[in-house]
């Protein structure tokens, strides 16, 4: 993937928003290393985390120095969705987060890849990776939803719990020329189909609200995010100016 510096502030803002999504979700998935329920999932989750980290590095480099941006910004300067910073929870929560995000990211990057904006080269490559991420999440949603009584209960609880963070994914992002309402409709259609096949109920709670509508994009995050940054940034910040 090539790194093209963003030409203007709108594109810089968009690169940060997309880059932070990928960075933070990759970090959360990295927390699974050594804890996955089966060995195949150690490989799969790490694979997805690596894809996302690769995307994050390209995007952040479009906005500036990748390490300065990742390690030296304060919480309020991060532009990621609140969804991706949510704790891993049990495997069902991680899968629900993956399902919501990857199906959104697949559609969004598909549109960006088809356009002629600065994100088209990255999106064109990444969308192939994301197709796998979405497939992984959908297959697990089907297994857990339509598996045992316990897995069904856990999966339903997970899709319900994270539902309130999904509205934010379709708030317009400055610098991205996307038909957001159409994206949302396509997302909801696919999601509904998967949840129904998984014998799960599509949640009906609010998807937007005072804290859930574009809040992450404005730098308003949830409590667990501060700890993510504390852990991620501690070593780098302890050695100002050092190279690694």
């Amino acid at each position, binding site marked *: 993937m090539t790194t093209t510096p963003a030409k203007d502030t709108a594109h810089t803002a968009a690169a940060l928003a997309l880059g932070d999504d990928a960075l933070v979700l990759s970090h959360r998935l990295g927390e699974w290393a050594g804890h996955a329920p089966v060995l195949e999932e*150690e490989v799969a989750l790490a694979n997805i985390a690596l894809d996302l980290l690769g995307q994050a*590095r390209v995007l952040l480099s479009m906005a500036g120095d990748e390490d300065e941006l990742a390690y030296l910004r304060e919480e309020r300067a991060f532009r990621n969705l609140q969804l991706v910073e949510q704790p891993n929870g049990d495997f069902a929560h991680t899968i629900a987060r993956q399902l919501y995000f990857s199906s959104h990211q697949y559609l969004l990057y598909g549109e960006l890849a088809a356009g002629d904006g600065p994100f088209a080269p990255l999106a064109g490559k990444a969308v192939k990776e994301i197709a796998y991420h979405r497939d992984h999440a959908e*297959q697990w949603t089907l297994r857990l939803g339509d*598996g045992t009584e316990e897995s069904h209960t856990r999966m339903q609880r997970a899709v319900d719990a994270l539902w309130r963070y999904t509205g934010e994914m379709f708030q317009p992002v400055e610098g991205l020329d996307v038909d957001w309402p159409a994206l949302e409709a396509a997302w909801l259609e696919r999601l509904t189909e998967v949840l129904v096949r998984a014998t799960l109920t599509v949640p009906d709670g609010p998807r937007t609200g005072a804290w859930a509508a574009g809040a992450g994009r404005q730098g308003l995050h949830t409590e667990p995010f501060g700890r993510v940054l504390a852990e991620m940034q501690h070593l780098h910040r302890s050695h100002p100016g050092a*190279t*690694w």
Partner: protein
Amino acid sequence: MATAAARETAGSQAYDVPDGAGDTTDTTGYERAFDAAVAADERIEPRDWMPDAYRATLVRQIAQHAHSEIIGMQPEANWITRAPSLRRKAILMAKVQDEAGHGLYLYSAAETLGVSRDELLDKLHSGRQKYSSIFNYPTLTWADVGAIGWLVDGAAITNQVPLCRCSYGPYARAMVRICKEESFHQRQGYELLLALSRGTPEQHAMAQDAVDRWWWPSLMMFGPPDDESQHSAQSMAWKIKRHSNDELRQRFVDICVPQAASLGLTLPDPDLKWNEERGHYDFGPIDWTEFWDVLKGNGPCNEQRLTRRRQAHEEGAWVREAAAAHAAKHSNGETGATRA
């Protein structure tokens, strides 16, 4: 004096051999064919006849190797979320992922001998099978990631390259692939330490401290000295093992000394010096008391590593059950559930 269990575990250090390798007087036609194949350096394949003791030895050795890969993920995964640059984070994640992959190849290689992964995991979780003791040491700073790559993976490669010529085909082939990746791991560790050594005084000190802590445990990875290693002879005869513990240990020391100099770091052994006559580096005595102690379960992290492994397995039980239940419901379906 070591317990029997601990002694058996010495195998996990050197990929050494357990007891029970008798029965050589029974010369059936099958056994003669097997012996001839081994003597001719041919590969034994899963469907070939093999002595029970050969099979048992391989199962134990491959299982211990597989367990070492998955337990070995823990000390390095400890630093994924704190990696100090995004480049280092990507490298470390890829390395830990490789280890999970190595575990998969190795459990698959063991399965060709008629044992299941579940059985082997049960034996790991109940302490009946072991993993390499090196992973019972803690990763205290970022530099430990580099020291593990340089020294621990370096020692593993020294042990494992000869296994690419092991007489059992599936194991030998798995090792070819694993060794290629291990060699990348070793280089990234060296390169990480080099960056630290040439960095700030604090970074240099961090690197030196890590090397000081990992050097001796790495030398212990080759297992007890030859005159105390009871299991090597049969394994060498079977061409599962190709070199003695002390030979491999010396080879490793000879490789590391000049590399340490290039790194600008010292090795914590005042007796290290070139011996013109032997054509090797002499090195100081190894503290075998520590070795046996860690093997018996008294290392700094034995309890922690195994507890965490069991916990991951137990917490994942409902996921595995769900996958099995889903697969059973949709055995002719299109949803593609993969495993029980």
